């Protein structure tokens, strides 16, 4: 069932995107990542945590895509699976024309320097025993990015670009503040001359004024080196500032995807609307018009059927409880999965599907009870 549904997602996406021939560095089709839940004794799989459950998007070269959503919606898992730090469950990831999951070990090693990751917490992602120069240079040496005799110069140059003085090379991570450490993390990723960097909440652990420094640095590096970012964050104002396109995730599914201006000007999905209305605005006169969502996020191990958001949605209709919404292009370049934007034909299909689902649920015996 899930398989079928996901294919359906992918097909509708591919059809909608196909006519535009643009230079995409990354293409994620229908990516699924489930974590099995094992029983305590026999280690049988008794269920799956559906962390990422059918996500598709494309990122054009030299652009930034912001990926946002509440905690536990699978945005970090998505980022890690794209880099093949974890094996996928289904779907595929095409990086610059190559299927990342079809590569052999050796091929994967070759492609690794081109896709890098900046972690959330700069306190735990740097080894406390290795000096900064070595942290940045280790992978450079491993991948033979530069000849041996230029190695030292190269590291100095990379550090300089990231705003780190060269005498930091002999120092250890504990001597630095959070902002400096995040610069070291960025320098480590940048040293391999990547094309694509996944930034997994790079500024969440930092103070406001330091955040600004790091965001500016990321933007400046992007212009200088033509980088492409996948920027994962739950801070909407940061996402709006840095991204060209934005994807919103809820419980493992992408619910809306559009260019930044469009999605912030006119969010379509009810979850996105609630999310945007909850952004705290630094102005005491601002009339708060929050849509306060009821309840909390359901467990990804046992997500509600139909539209996953229907348990908390203001506009929940009968059909939402049984039929997952289609992923469709509601406006040009503005994708959304919600039954509110169905046309007549889709509505009819959805109604049919709902009746079928209801019948399945009730079983033939209970038919008489239904009025």
């Amino acid at each position: 069932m899930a398989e079928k549904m996901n294919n359906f997602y992918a097909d509708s996406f591919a059809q909608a995107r196909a006519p535009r021939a643009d230079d995409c560095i990354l293409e994620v089709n229908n990516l699924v990542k489930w974590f099995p839940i094992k029983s305590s004794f026999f280690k049988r799989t008794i269920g799956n945590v559906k962390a990422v459950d059918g996500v598709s998007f494309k990122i054009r070269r030299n652009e930034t895509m912001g990926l946002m959503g509440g905690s536990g919606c699978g945005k970090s898992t998505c980022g890690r699976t794209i880099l093949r730090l974890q094996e996928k469950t289904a779907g595929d990831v095409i990086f610059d024309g190559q299927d990342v999951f079809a590569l052999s070990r050796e091929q994967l090693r070759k492609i690794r320097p081109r896709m890098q990751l900046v972690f959330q917490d700069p306190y735990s992602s740097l080894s406390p025993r290795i000096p900064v120069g070595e942290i940045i240079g280790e992978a450079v040496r491993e991948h033979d990015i530069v000849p041996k005799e230029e190695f030292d110069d190269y590291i100095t140059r990379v550090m300089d670009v990231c705003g780190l003085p060269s005498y930091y090379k002999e120092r250890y991570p504990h001597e630095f503040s959070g902002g400096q450490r995040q610069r070291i993390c960025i320098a480590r990723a940048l040293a391999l001359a990547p094309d694509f960097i996944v930034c997994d909440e790079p500024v969440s652990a930092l103070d406001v004024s330091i955040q600004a420094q790091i965001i500016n640095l990321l933007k400046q590096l992007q212009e200088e080196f033509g980088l492409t970012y996948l920027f994962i964050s739950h801070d909407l104002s940061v996402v709006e500032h840095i991204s060209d396109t934005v994807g919103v995730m809820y419980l493992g599914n992408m619910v809306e995807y559009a260019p930044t201006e469009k999605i912030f000007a006119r969010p379509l999905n009810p979850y996105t609307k609630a999310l945007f209305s909850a952004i705290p605005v630094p102005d005491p006169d601002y009339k708060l018009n929050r849509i306060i969502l009821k309840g909390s996020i359901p467990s990804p191990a046992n997500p509600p059927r139909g539209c996953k958001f229907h348990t908390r949605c203001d506009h929940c209709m009968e059909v939402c409880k049984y039929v997952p919404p289609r992923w469709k292009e509601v406006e040009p370049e503005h994708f959304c999965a919600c039954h509110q934007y169905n046309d007549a034909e889709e509505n009819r299909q959805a109604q049919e599907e709902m009746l079928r689902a209801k019948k399945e649920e009730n079983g033939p015996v209970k038919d008489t009870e239904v009025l």
Partner: protein
Amino acid sequence: MAEKKKSSYISGKESRKITKFNRRITKKLEKERADANKDPALYTTKMRDENNVVEFDNVCTYFFSDVGVVKAVDGVNFDIPKHTTVGVVGESGCGKSVTSLSLMQLLQRPTGQTVGGQIRFNKGDGTAYNIVNTPNAIMETLRGNKISMIFQEPMTALNPVFRIGQQINEVIELHYPEMSEEDVKARTLEMLELVGIANKEGVYSMYPHELSGGMRQRICIAIALACSPTLIIADEPTTALDVTIQAQILDLLQNLKDKLNSSIMLITHDLGVVAGMADYVVVMYAGRVVEKGTADDIFHHPMHPYTIGLMKSKPVVGQKVDMLYNIPGSVPNPVSMPDYCYFRDRCEMTCGRCRGSYPPEIRVSDTHVVSCYRYYDEGTVLGYPKSVNVEEL
């Protein structure tokens, strides 16, 4: 680099001297605090203004660490009026949490000590406690009862091995020993309902791990409000939660404040949260208050260069800028603070006077007070923050 090393280097002899000095002072202060039969006159004072719940008057909280005295809070002045929300804003390490911990007397003792100034807590009958001198025995009757605290991380604030019901009961039983078991349970269930938990009977017998982050924070709020305190300290209550849950919790706090007639001291680094919640805002930098006023004063007419910088560095939805402003440099070392304005080295608006000593508090309007020499001629000088000379203790 060599120079840098020199300044932080401490010889064995110096280190021993520091340790000896710290031990002498902390021992003396601890002894004073443990004395339960202290003369009440020593810790009872009068409020400056009867309409305030708490008055911080030149509070100095120092940490006697192995590398020297860290002046985490150094001459902080501000008031919390009745039935209002006061937001305390600042970067990490600016002393905002330490200020609230001094009020609760929950500092990491014996290293952390409030060595000077007064924290006056209104008793309601015309007198006030001076929290700085109040002995532990009296403090225990206040903590959780009159003043209570909501912590940042709901996961670590709750005990994983006790049921939710027990943890809320504990607070009520401690402060109202005369209540019967049934009454305590009834009160707990009432609190659970108050914080918006639908399945209160079920949650009563659950363990913390069975609840989501937002629910856990609701439990923490229920524990804090169980005795209807006059002051609630919320130390970054929503930092660990995501945006939609944050909206729920802030909404709840605001409603409960009105219901219980309490005041809230809201500590946060998120300017957006403060703008939506607070009536008064206090901006702290490096252990001192740099600017305070009503939310309107701070957000519409920020005056201190630090506040202005902080506002500019936060991206705002709907306002597109190419580059975010960032405040150059970093916070000075807390062990050896300069004797001039702490912000001077990072400030882009310095004037001639800035070369002098630390700027005084200057009142620019009825509610707006700023510590910056740029407004020296525009307002009335209220006074300079005073440090405590630790050698004289």
